[in-house]
């Protein structure tokens, strides 16, 4: 589904990604973790072309992201993305947030889009919040609207960039539960997160990144019980002890 091959990326002389390769197969849930500044967010943003990369290839469902011939907006419409800071449109209601791209990208009629949006908002537990603006919602609710906005496009895969990092602790679970449900339904997901509990419950594989490199790419069980690299062991020791 998603194939990353030998991707390099630098800002100025700062090397952000070096020789990153990984695949996410259909229906797989891959968690990407690692210390801050290790390139996780950059990598996930390369997948839908929000961040251009210098070398290597990324293909999504057989379509090359970096190729100038690729219709990038069309490609993006098939991959949902959820951001750390929600990034909802503050001047629109929850419903309008979820309907906008359906109307302008998928060319659904407003009525059709709104009906779909209501269904999805209900699914993420926000059926009664359709007319609320983002500023009237809690962080957890905003993030669920943001997930709904991505789901409304009927994506083939979902990318999550630290979806719970900006949330108060008591709101983290409501977002993780929605994500877990998605995973159980077979959604292909790539999730950058520090929530190791989520990784343990839901992930099929874990990618561990450090200083721009994918240091480890292992099945979940092995990652948590017997990580191959010293760096991952250290990381887990730090993350899991508290």
């Amino acid at each position, binding site marked *: 589904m998603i194939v990353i091959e030998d991707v390099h990326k630098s800002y100025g002389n700062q090397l952000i990604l070096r020789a990153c390769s990984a695949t996410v197969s259909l229906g797989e849930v891959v968690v990407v973790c690692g210390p801050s500044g290790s390139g996780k967010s950059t990598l996930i943003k390369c997948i839908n072309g929000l961040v251009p990369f210098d070398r290597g290839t990324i293909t999504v469902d057989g379509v090359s992201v970096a190729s100038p011939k690729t219709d990038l907006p069309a490609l993006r419409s098939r991959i949902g*993305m959820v*951001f750390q800071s929600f990034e909802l449109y503050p001047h629109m209601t929850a419903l309008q947030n979820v309907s906008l791209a359906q109307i302008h990208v998928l060319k659904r009629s407003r009525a059709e889009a709104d009906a779909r949006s209501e269904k999805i908002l209900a699914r993420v537990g926000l059926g009664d919040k359709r007319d609320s603006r983002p500023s009237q919602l809690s962080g957890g609710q905003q993030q669920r609207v943001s997930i709904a906005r991505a789901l409304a496009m009927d994506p083939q895969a979902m990318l999550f960039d630290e979806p719970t990092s900006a949330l108060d602790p008591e709101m983290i679970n409501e977002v993780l539960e929605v994500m877990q449900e998605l995973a159980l339904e077979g959604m292909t997901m790539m999730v950058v997160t520090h929530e190791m509990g989520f990784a343990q419950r839901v992930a099929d594989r874990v990618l561990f990144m450090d200083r721009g490199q994918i240091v480890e790419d292992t099945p979940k069980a092995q990652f948590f019980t017997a990580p191959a690299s010293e760096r991952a062991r250290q990381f887990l020791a730090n993350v899991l002890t508290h």
Partner: protein
Amino acid sequence: MNYRWDWSILFKDTYMGWLWSGLLWTVIISLASWAVALTIGLLAGAARSAPSRSARLLAGIYIDVFRNVPPLVQLFLWYFVLPEVVPDSFGLWLKRDLPYPEVVTAVVAIGLFAGSRVAEQVRAGIEAVGAPLMPAALATGLRPAQAYRLIVLPLGLRAIVGPLTSEFLITVKLSSLSLTIGVLELTAQSRHVENYTFQGFEAFTFATIGYLVIGLCVTGLMRFIDIRIGGAALRKTPA
């Protein structure tokens, strides 16, 4: 103070006629130059964040030139210099055939000056409030032009209704500059009345109240717009 107040002059037909006509011209020039400022400012401000390099450069030059030359100097340049440096026939047309040449010149000069200031507000609003949502909009599959039109621009503009109120008010006050090229607007007519009656205080009191009322109307109108489009609510959004 030995001044002999005489409010009755304000109610004499002649003087009242002058003052009201001055007020009317002030309103006309203010509204017309604000329309110019808003149009040019929106275009130039949006162009500053356009993908095209030449569009950004062109808008940048406009803003730098018009924002940095005193508006009074600009007014003189448009009125006295422009007709002499353009081809003769066009210069002649400007001087002889253009209807209400002083008023039109004032509107263009003040509008272009204010437009450069509006452009900077628009650019700032887009950069600070609209542009950060660009990646999120693109991620949903919107094309860059759609994301710009549906999200970035509307958000940027909502954010700047407050500062635009100030620009609108400045434009109203700048209309008084047009007396220097012979437009008989409110300030000019007040001086006119003073010259005829020696009752300058009364005349300028009328002018003061006139400007104040126009200003309060502008403030009220902009606040109404701000509330209607939800700009005020947006700025209160906690991070």
